[in-house]
């Protein structure tokens, strides 16, 4: 029986291949998070235990004339379902090696620049997030790493580089950062977000400049709003690592800390005095994206700052603080409960076991709320 890796699945999407994903996890895990990517492939959720109870009804939901890619939480239930399908004559099918978690952890590196220094974007499809890796000679800087630290370390080794600095654009609430786990690096973050951290860190100063070997500069811009410690990094006067301040199709929401008016005002001033004054030709590299179709072009998530201002003219044209605060309030949405816990993990004040961290990082877990059910 054939299998595929998470990266191979992403490549199949990127190449626009035609297939049907049969996700055999339970319905709530499926609804919380399932595979999405740069193409419109078909997907159906049929829990493996339905195959146990009512095989005929399940088989009726699976067409025979399309390639099937079967996904479960770990792997064994995919193989179980694939075996049933094969026994009924289905032929063109394969399953995801090691299950959905490998999709959750998947990082896809793409080189953005190779003249003098190297700059890579690491897209994490499952979270719609991006981290960045900058290297020259044998030195490497990392921005906003996710928790798959081994992948960054192996990537550095494969390129003959050593990670010297790890930067955060802000204290992440939606995923567990790999930052604190790197050994023998300078972990450079802003005090405003990290003062309650349980570990030592290097405190970034506004307008500070870091110089990579070869003389390439990384400029620090304190850009509070999404969080009080939000930071934007300008690389070689060409690239803007914008974190969760500037997105391609929006700006970072300033309401996650429960002080919406105060943070929205901060964000307004940041945009007016520190961000919109930057050159239009800066290639903007955000911390997140929300729409594969509109944001993923030629394998990259990024647009010039000028294009972004045009795409978001409804936001950037607001020239009154109160109007801006009202705009933010009108667009507020609830935040997942797990965010406050993820922040605590990221500053090291709680340290759940690896299994629990995986669950927090991929979505909410409902196992703890386990009182008697009616």
């Amino acid at each position, binding site marked *: 029986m054939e299998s595929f890796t998470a990266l191979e699945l992403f490549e199949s999407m990127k190449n626009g291949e035609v297939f049907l994903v049969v996700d055999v996890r*339970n*319905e*709530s*895990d499926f609804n919380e998070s399932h595979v999405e990517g740069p193409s419109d492939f078909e997907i159906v959720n049929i*829990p*493996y*235990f*339905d195959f*146990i*109870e009512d095989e005929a009804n399940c088989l009726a939901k699976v067409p025979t004339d399309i390639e099937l890619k079967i996904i*479960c*939480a*770990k792997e*064994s*239930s995919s193989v*179980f379902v694939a075996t049933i399908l094969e026994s009924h004559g289905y032929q063109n099918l394969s399953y995801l090696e090691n299950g959905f978690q490998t999709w959750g952890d998947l990082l896809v590196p793409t080189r953005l620049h190779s003249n003098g220094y190297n700059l890579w974007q690491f897209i994490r499809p499952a979270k719609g997030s991006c981290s960045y890796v900058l290297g020259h000679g044998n030195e490497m800087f990392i921005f906003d790493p996710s928790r798959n630290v081994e992948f960054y370390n192996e990537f550095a080794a494969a390129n003959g580089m050593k990670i010297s600095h790890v930067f955060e654009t802000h204290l992440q609430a939606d995923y567990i950062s790999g930052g604190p786990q790197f050994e023998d690096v300078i972990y450079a973050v802003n005090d405003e977000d990290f003062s309650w951290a349980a570990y030592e860190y290097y405190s970034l100063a506004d307008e500070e400049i870091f110089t990579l070997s070869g003389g390439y500069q990384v400029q620090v811009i304190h850009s509070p709003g999404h969080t009080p410690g939000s930071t934007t990094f300008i690389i070689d006067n060409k690239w803007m690592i914008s974190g969760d301040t500037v997105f391609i199709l929006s700006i970072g929401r300033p309401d996650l800390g429960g002080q919406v008016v105060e943070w929205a005002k901060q964000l307004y001033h940041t945009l007016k005095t520190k961000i919109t004054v930057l050159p239009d030709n800066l290639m903007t590299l955000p911390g997140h994206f929300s729409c594969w179709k509109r944001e993923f072009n030629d394998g990259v998530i990024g647009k010039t700052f000028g294009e972004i201002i045009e795409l978001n003219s409804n936001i950037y044209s607001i020239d009154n603080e109160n109007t801006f605060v009202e705009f933010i309030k009108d667009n507020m949405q609830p935040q997942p409960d797990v965010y406050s816990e993820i922040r605590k993990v990221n500053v090291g004040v709680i340290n759940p076991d690896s*299994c629990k961290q995986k*669950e927090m990082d991929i979505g909410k*877990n*409902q*196992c*703890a709320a*386990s*009182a*008697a*059910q009616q």
Partner: protein
Amino acid sequence: MTLYDETIDCKGMQCPMPVLKTKMKIDTMAAGKVLKLITSDPGSCKDIPAWAERVGHKLLSNEETDEGYLFYIERGE
């Protein structure tokens, strides 16, 4: 303490085995009888309740203990 009629230990098993074994066991029981189930696979936390609801068995309780994940399931009609 929930009263039960039958018990099954699925510790050390990975999905789909806990659901498969539980189904085979509960199919031998009469409606209204209670099965005590222990698993160690975190995946069963959601899969067992979701399966039971689908099939029409009643999940009486569901908790994480030192022994593992403990479920009491009442066989449906």
